[in-house]
């Protein structure tokens, strides 16, 4: 859908200033600069203007004005996203929800929290801690990222296998539609009548509505959590051990894997005492009651040893547990130390394909002449390959992107998907054509139009225009000599 705004920047700003504090209707380049990108800083664009409303009513008015004048709107939380989903539209408004930062209510008995969308993910658990409760999804950006953004991206974290994604942990959202209507989707009940609009909204990347309030479920904090660290001399053995634990009937709270490059980088950074000669490292956290953890930890250690672990270590204290996690949690900055830049991918694969995918990736690494380090949410099959590059070397980012796209095509080929938790945004919009055929993409466009008939919400993101898809698919075909579309749909 082509957007032709019917109003000038000055006119739009003037209209907004009649009901929003003029200081928060930003039109000058210098103040707008921080909004030009999100966490995916390779993709930048300056918006027409930025607006920071304070009330839901103001959000509704902004939406009505933009809808009437066909002005694009990009809603923005903390801007920590990793797919350029919050990158501005140069003809459009950035609608920042930064001022909606209050925890409205915590109900310890019902185990729920009502939140404005700008509340930080970690702040929910911090506030709930006094009641022995916490909020499940914990994306690595949880210090900064907000719940509104989490809903938009269906964020996960390291505990998804057991505790689910955002979609599993919210009860309702209040949202403003493209046309400025305020609606509530979901309720205090666990499910609602009719088609599941709450699920559809979750992960819709700001293309279907602007979330103005979220009610989340809280979980009782487990009595105990312990982590078993196991080193393996091959990726294959590490991958098999992941399956081994699950086949044994244990559902770990977290199950993470790192490859040799990531182990060394993380250990240099965090001095976590990782086995530096290992080719694969697993961190398996078991949580629950004291009795349960005791029972499952012993079983996990045995499973790892049987499956050929070269080292097994179990945290004996909370400090030790945190130290073992520290390496994993700092893997990204750790890799940042060994390379001027890195590019984080987010494909998901069936766990049984882990060894094959990592081996293929090593080959690609040689072909493209770029190093890659892997951290992996092994429990749920979500890969985060970090491609190391130097943006100052001409052509190197383009090569990195090409490498990245080959990795995503490989993920689809083995039965996985192009993004597990970072979203499509601008970054992966072309690769959507690898995972979906034209009829499916058209259905997505039609879903979007049901919510946003004029196409003003976050245009150009999430779903590619069909005319570009065929071209992209044939390019991919030439590059890899595989028909990935067939593999995905065969």
């Amino acid at each position, binding site marked *: 859908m082509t957007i032709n705004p019917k109003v000038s920047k000055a006119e739009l700003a003037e209209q907004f200033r009649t009901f929003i504090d003029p200081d928060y209707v930003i039109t000058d380049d210098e103040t707008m600069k921080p909004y030009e990108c999100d966490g995916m800083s390779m993709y930048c664009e300056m918006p027409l203007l930025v607006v920071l409303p304070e009330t839901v009513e103001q959000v509704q008015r902004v939406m009505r004005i933009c809808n009437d004048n066909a002005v694009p709107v990009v809603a923005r939380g903390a801007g920590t996203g990793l797919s350029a989903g919050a990158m501005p539209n140069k003809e459009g408004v950035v609608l920042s929800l930064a001022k909606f930062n209050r925890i409205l209510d915590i109900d310890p008995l019902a185990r729920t929290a009502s939140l404005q969308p700008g509340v930080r993910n970690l702040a929910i658990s911090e506030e709930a801690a006094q009641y022995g409760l916490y909020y499940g999804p914990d994306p690595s950006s949880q210090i900064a990222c907000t719940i509104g953004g989490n809903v938009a991206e269906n964020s996960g974290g390291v505990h998804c296998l057991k505790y689910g994604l955002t979609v599993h942990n919210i009860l309702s959202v209040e949202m403003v539609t493209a046309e400025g209507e305020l609606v509530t989707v979901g309720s205090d009940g666990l499910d609602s009548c009719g088609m599941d609009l709450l699920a559809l909204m979750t992960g819709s990347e700001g293309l279907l509505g602007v979330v103005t309030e979220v009610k989340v479920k809280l979980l009782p904090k487990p009595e105990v959590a312990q982590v078993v660290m196991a080193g393996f001399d091959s990726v294959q053995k590490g991958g098999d051990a992941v399956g081994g634990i699950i086949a044994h009937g244990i559902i770990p709270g977290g199950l993470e894997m790192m490859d040799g490059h990531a182990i060394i980088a993380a250990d240099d950074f965090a001095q976590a005492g990782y086995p530096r000669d290992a080719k694969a490292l697993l961190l398996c956290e078991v949580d629950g009651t004291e009795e349960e953890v005791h029972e499952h930890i012993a079983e996990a250690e045995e499973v790892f040893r049987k499956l050929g672990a070269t080292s097994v270590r179990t945290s004996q204290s909370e400090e030790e547990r945190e130290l073992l996690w520290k390496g994993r949690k700092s893997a990204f900055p750790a890799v940042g130390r060994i390379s001027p830049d890195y590019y984080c991918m987010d494909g998901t694969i069936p766990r049984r394909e882990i060894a094959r995918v990592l081996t293929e990736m090593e080959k690609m690494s040689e072909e493209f002449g770029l190093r890659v380090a892997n951290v992996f949410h092994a429990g749920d099959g979500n890969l985060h390959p970090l491609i190391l590059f130097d943006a100052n070397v001409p052509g190197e980012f383009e090569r990195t992107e090409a490498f990245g796209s080959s990795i995503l095509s490989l993920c689809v080929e083995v039965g996985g*998907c192009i993004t597990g938790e970072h979203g499509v945004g601008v970054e992966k919009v072309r690769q959507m054509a690898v995972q979906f055929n034209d009829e499916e993409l058209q259905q997505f466009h039609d879903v979007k139009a049901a919510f946003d008939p004029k196409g003003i919400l976050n245009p150009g993101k999430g779903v590619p225009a069909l005319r570009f898809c065929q071209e992209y698919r044939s390019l991919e075909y030439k590059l890899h000599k595989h028909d990935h579309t067939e593999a995905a749909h065969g």
Partner: protein
Amino acid sequence: MADNLQTLQEQVLHARDGGHKLNIVGGGTKAFMGRAADQDAGTLNVGEHTGIVDYHPVELVLTVRAGTTLQEIEATLAEEGQALHFEPPHFGEDSTIGGTLACNLSGPARPWAGSVRDQVLGVRLINGKGEHLRFGGQVMKNVAGYDVSRLQAGAMGTLGVLTEISMKVMPKPAAILTLVQEMAVDEVIHYMNSRAAEPKPITAACWLEGKVYLRLSGASSAVEATAQKWSGDVMENGDQFWRQIQDMGHEFFTGDDPLWRFSVGSTAANPKLDGPWLIDWAGSQRWYRGNAELKQMEALAKEAGGQVSLFRGGDRGGEVMQHQPDALKGIQRRLKNSFDPDGIFNPGRLYSWL
């Protein structure tokens, strides 16, 4: 086991060309749900599109054709020590996975294990244009494209014909035990919620006829230790009790009185309405038997922070689901139109206006 896809697709295209409507039927065990089926519409039988397409126990992922019975699925999973953790109700041996998802039906474990919708990873469906589309996938995390798979939960087939479903499965717990004790309805809401707020292996909490039933499942040591700490007597035939709640085989559910389902805030006071009540899901799902007007029930549901539906019996010609505000009606009409532009599938089954 049969792949009946081509026939299904042809029938949809045939209906489209001829301007006919279709009622989608799997095992035919949920005909009592939703509004009465359109008498003039033809039948699209998905019940013969059956079979397990893919099952890797280690992946915890199962892919099945939509007409596969719950019984067959559960028997296959049991061989590997796994199960459908959302405990789907069986309304007879023919209940299928497709119907279960379309009606979004989950059993007593739902607040802890999640619902059928929560376990869904991907679907394939035939839309009203006869296109066979794939959404989601077979992996736990997948945020590419809108979540069309979970949108189908509760849509009662109004958006398309589900043909294949991929879902998460889980290992069976090592130990299960049920505690029972007498408790008045006024106390039980607080009691069940307090228990649910403890980090213990609770997996069901139900109140019926003056007694509260709590189920513990997980590692044997954890189940036993919790049972010792918590009050209540260990129930001899606990599994049987939960089976009756799951399949609505308990005598509370028998007879012809209208059955109302309230999906409400777990801590809301029980609506002041005389007649038999069953409180499940630690307070989030409440069942009532008796004649009433939908409007009157909606007011009670709203007060309790949730919604109501006339689950079985009563007037199936009128609306049976919670009234939708105009803005949401508009969105749902347009969504329906985007999947099924000619209005072929299950006309009027969910709402009179859809």
